[in-house]
């Protein structure tokens, strides 16, 4: 993280007149076909130059709120809007999205779904052109916006050539070029890898530092955002406003309340709450890894007896009875070699995370292990069989594969059929298929959805069904490709808890992911892939101890590791990788 300027040091734009830039009053939005309003009652205001973070548990209507700020709700998306959203004194319902676009600019979650032209310059010019600005003005705005996000030198390239972080920076430039005093960002980093997240936040920090824009940020990745936020607005599960105030008042003083509401706090704040419960004095509550580190560095160590020793789940040596054995695996995609002579053992019952930068080859490795991409003969063995020689009936009984988007692997018209399909392939008797289907539906909480079309399930249910179908043939190994991509924290945690339960019951879990904190919370062991090679494989705590290696692989330390590393005064804390390793319990 680059240093963000402290809010007080920033240049402020003097308010024009009395009307706030944005005023939300008693806002309730009910999407057509939904029984409840979310948000249900929200009031707050944003003044010029302010940076406001919107927090709330999953389902509280944060994204819906964001869409209402520039009038997309109710003008484009069918929904009932009660209360008022006023931009510069004009009610959004009384004007048009196009007219509002000069006051409020949007940045959405998926960078690919907001780029419409073939070059960076055309992309940034697109909005000003729509506003019929003179050509000179279009050029001036485009250049200024691209320079602000550091992409001016690449202006003639196709956006497809940019990384995910680069495309999202381009989307920010396109929003800046609209010239709107208010920027609304809806989960701008949910689809990015750690490097992309860092890039986007460095860019945002510079926009904030310039002080000419107000920002409303909906974000669950608080660890990155908290540095430059002025105010926090919090919604509860039902979509009611529960807090609105400066970061200190809301996050530092009411952290425990927010946690109980189901709001995701920064990892460092959660860690600090646990440590407080264990007797540490941490005042004020640290919110960033740097703050937590500094607070602990000057804290006298507590008696060793007060601290639970961190759990050491596995030894460094490779497992004696590996369930997955990879030897000399080299794989090509087209003309390029994507995996070079990879050897790897995964022990029975382990929970393994495969991490690496974009394009490092981690998904290809996972696909080769699961036989989704056929590996050369003799290179990959799973539970005693050679994956390259296994037929289509044997393989699913050894390893199940879950794709990133669950919808991609649905093939039947009902949830029950989806499960039964895998059992029928085993040539079981009809009765047997029925009992085992019912048992599995119950296990994954889908019994009352048995006759529903898989596409009509909620996001979380779809994900559970895709895990169920992968395990139906009795596979002892489950491989998942980026299962938390683009999901909010609550849903990601729900899935990971399910995986932890399966793991506790004996299933070996191999998961490819970008989310370093999830890795350190759940995985016993980590495999680091860089440029088609496995450059590290070991217990999570050991792998994250090697900061140089993590950075070389294009990764970032999870926030908790950043806060706790090199804490000489607290040797017992210094090796903790997961919140559960810390002493104390948040009641």
């Amino acid at each position, binding site marked *: 993280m680059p240093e963000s300027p402290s809010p007080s040091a920033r240049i402020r734009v003097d308010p024009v007149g009395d009307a706030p830039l944005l005023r939300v009053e008693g806002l309730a939005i009910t999407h057509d076909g939904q029984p409840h309003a979310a948000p249900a009652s929200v009031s707050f205001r944003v003044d010029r130059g302010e940076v406001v973070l919107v927090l709330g548990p999953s389902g509280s209507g944060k994204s819906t709120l964001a869409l209402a700020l520039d009038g997309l709700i109710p003008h484009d998306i069918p929904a009932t809007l009660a209360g008022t959203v006023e931009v510069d004194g004009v009610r959004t319902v009384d004007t048009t999205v196009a007219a509002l676009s000069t006051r409020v600019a949007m940045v959405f979650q998926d960078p690919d779904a907001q780029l419409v032209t073939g070059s960076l310059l055309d992309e940034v010019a697109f*909005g000003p052109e729509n506003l019929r600005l003179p050509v000179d003005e279009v050029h001036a705005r485009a250049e200024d916006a691209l320079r602000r996000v550091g992409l001016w030198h690449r202006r003639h390239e196709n956006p497809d050539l940019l990384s995910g972080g680069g495309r999202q920076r381009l989307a920010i430039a396109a929003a800046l070029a609209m010239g709107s005093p208010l920027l609304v960002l809806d989960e701008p980093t949910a689809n990015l890898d750690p490097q992309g997240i860092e890039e986007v936040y460095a860019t945002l920090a510079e926009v904030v530092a310039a002080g000419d824009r107000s920002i409303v940020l909906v974000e669950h990745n608080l660890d990155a955002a908290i540095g430059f936020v002025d105010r926090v607005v919090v919604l509860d599960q039902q979509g009611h406003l529960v807090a609105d105030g400066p970061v200190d008042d809301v996050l530092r003083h009411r952290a425990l309340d927010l946690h109980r509401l189901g709001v995701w706090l920064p990892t460092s704040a959660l860690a600090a709450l646990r440590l407080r419960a264990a007797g540490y004095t941490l005042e004020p509550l640290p919110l960033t890894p740097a703050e937590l580190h500094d607070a602990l560095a000057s804290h006298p160590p507590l008696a060793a007896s007060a601290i639970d020793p961190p759990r050491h789940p596995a030894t460094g040596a490779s497992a004696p009875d590996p369930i997955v054995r990879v030897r000399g695996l080299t794989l090509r995609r087209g003309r390029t070699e994507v995996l070079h002579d990879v050897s790897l053992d995964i022990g029975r019952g382990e929970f393994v995370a495969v991490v690496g930068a974009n394009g490092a080859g981690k998904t290809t490795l996972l696909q080769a292990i699961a036989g989704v991409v056929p590996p050369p003969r003799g290179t990959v063995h799973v539970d005693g069989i050679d994956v390259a020689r296994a037929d289509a009936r044997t393989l699913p009984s050894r390893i199940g594969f879950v794709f990133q988007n669950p919808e991609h692997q649905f093939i039947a018209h009902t949830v029950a059929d989806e499960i039964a399909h895998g059992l029928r392939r085993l040539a079981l008797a009809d009765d047997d298929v029925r009992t085992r289907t019912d048992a599995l539906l119950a296990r994954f909480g889908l019994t009352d959805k048995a006759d529903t079309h898989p596409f009509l399930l909620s996001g979380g249910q779809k994900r559970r069904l895709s895990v169920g179908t992968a395990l139906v043939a009795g596979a002892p190994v489950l491989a998942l490709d980026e299962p938390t991509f683009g999901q909010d924290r609550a849903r990601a945690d729900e899935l990971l808890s399910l995986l932890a339960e399966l793991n506790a019951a004996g299933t070996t879990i191999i998961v490819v992911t970008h989310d370093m904190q999830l890795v350190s919370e759940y995985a016993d062991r980590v495999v680091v892939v860089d440029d088609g090679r496995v450059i590290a494989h070991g217990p999570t705590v050991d792998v994250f101890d090697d900061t140089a290696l993590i950075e070389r692989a294009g990764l970032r330390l999870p926030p908790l590791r950043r806060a706790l590393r090199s804490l000489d005064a607290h040797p017992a804390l210094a090796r903790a990788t997961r919140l559960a390793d810390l002493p104390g319990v948040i009641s």
Partner: protein
Amino acid sequence: MTVTADPFAPAPPAAPARFLYRLNPLAKLAAVIPATLVLVFVRDLTTPLVFLAIAYAVLLVGARLTGRLLALLLLAVPLGIALVGCGFSLWADASLVDTTPVVLQVGDWRLYAGALHTGFATGLRLGAIIALALMAGLTTTGPDLVRSFVQQLRVPYRIGYTALAAFRFVPRFAHELDVIRQAHRVRGASGGRGPFAAPARWFGYVVPLLAGAIRHAERVALAMDARAFGAYAGRTERHDVPFRTRDVVFVLALWAASAAVLIALFPWGIG
């Protein structure tokens, strides 16, 4: 040979003599329309050959001589003509041409000169049509084509630029289809054997692909609206794509050349 189809790629800088890049895309299209229509109906060998020669001459003078252009003109097009020519020669109905001399005899089977003529006339016609289309295709960018449609043909810009945005969907959906096929294979959704298996399999891909496509299109539409797309009846054009005297000259010159060829050869088989 890899033909990268980036409809957005900007035209690389070209020497002033390479005039095709500086013509209006509509002029390049209009200039070849009469010749293309005629080529659909002619049956002889000479007419397509002459049009092929004209197209090659214009391309070699008016377009930049890249490896890709030369590979297209000297390898891909001749090879295509040869393949189509041979294929249609074998396929032609022998009873219609059995009065012509036999060129080749294998056992009972005879290849007549007439069949060869029909086959290669077809191959050359296709080759000539493609070569004429390349005049516009190789020297025009997607955005310029859209701009000329909007500026000269008065196509509403909302349609033109939405179509251009939709180009971006193509590689995305192609990738998504790949992943879906992979996922269905893993699930063992082969759809069984027999003539209906393949259609059944493809139908299975359609639902997830459409679900993803609709969602994506909705998001893109929101993002475009949020940036004031369609706010006014017109929008600023940073690049004018004018229709100049030289465009008129180019169109008239090619029309005149086409007419001259037709009058000289009169390829209608009734003369």
